[in-house]
């Protein structure tokens, strides 16, 4: 059976990513990479070994120059509320 025949609904794709590393794009320019342990139909999720990347646009007061400030941090176990999720991308084969 091919993968595409098992996946009929959008959530089936996320089910297939359980216990795998996933990439989640969130509102407010945040990205999460982590191991998917649980989700529900709202896309509330529990992730393990998470790395969060936050991109902020910083405006220099003097020159009015805009620069993107990237901050990263690691979190061991994280529940995330589904209403902030933009997309969930299945296992990352690279990195």
């Amino acid at each position, binding site marked *: 059976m091919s993968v595409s025949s098992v996946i009929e609904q959008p959530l089936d794709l996320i089910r297939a990513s359980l*216990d795998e590393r996933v990439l989640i794009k969130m509102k407010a320019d945040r990205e999460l990479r982590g191991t998917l*342990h*649980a989700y529900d139909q709202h896309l509330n999720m529990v992730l*393990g070994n998470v790395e969060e990347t936050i991109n902020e646009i910083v405006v220099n007061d003097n020159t009015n120059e805009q620069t993107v400030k990237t901050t990263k941090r690691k979190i*061991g*176990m994280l529940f*995330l*509320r589904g209403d902030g999720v933009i997309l969930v991308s299945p296992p990352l084969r690279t990195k």
Partner: protein
Amino acid sequence: MLFFSFFKTLVDKEVIVELKNEVSLKGTLHSVDQYLNIKLNNVEIVDEQKYPYLGCLKNCFIRGSTVRYIQLPAADVDTDVLQDATRKEHQVNKK
């Protein structure tokens, strides 16, 4: 219902709740309800310099919809049980 049950297993554990307005509250999980509203006891504000007016907060109710993340104690999360429960929930919701 999955995450409601999950949070009930984390009652009396220490969590850090990050809200959508960037405030982080560290405290002991006292109770949860079906909307994932939360009551925290022994609250400490993580970045108290930034939010000094919150310093006097000792216990609080948090509306579920204002939550962005909840950092969990990794040792108290059984990831195998979570994944099994997620698969079961997925089956039920497909019907």
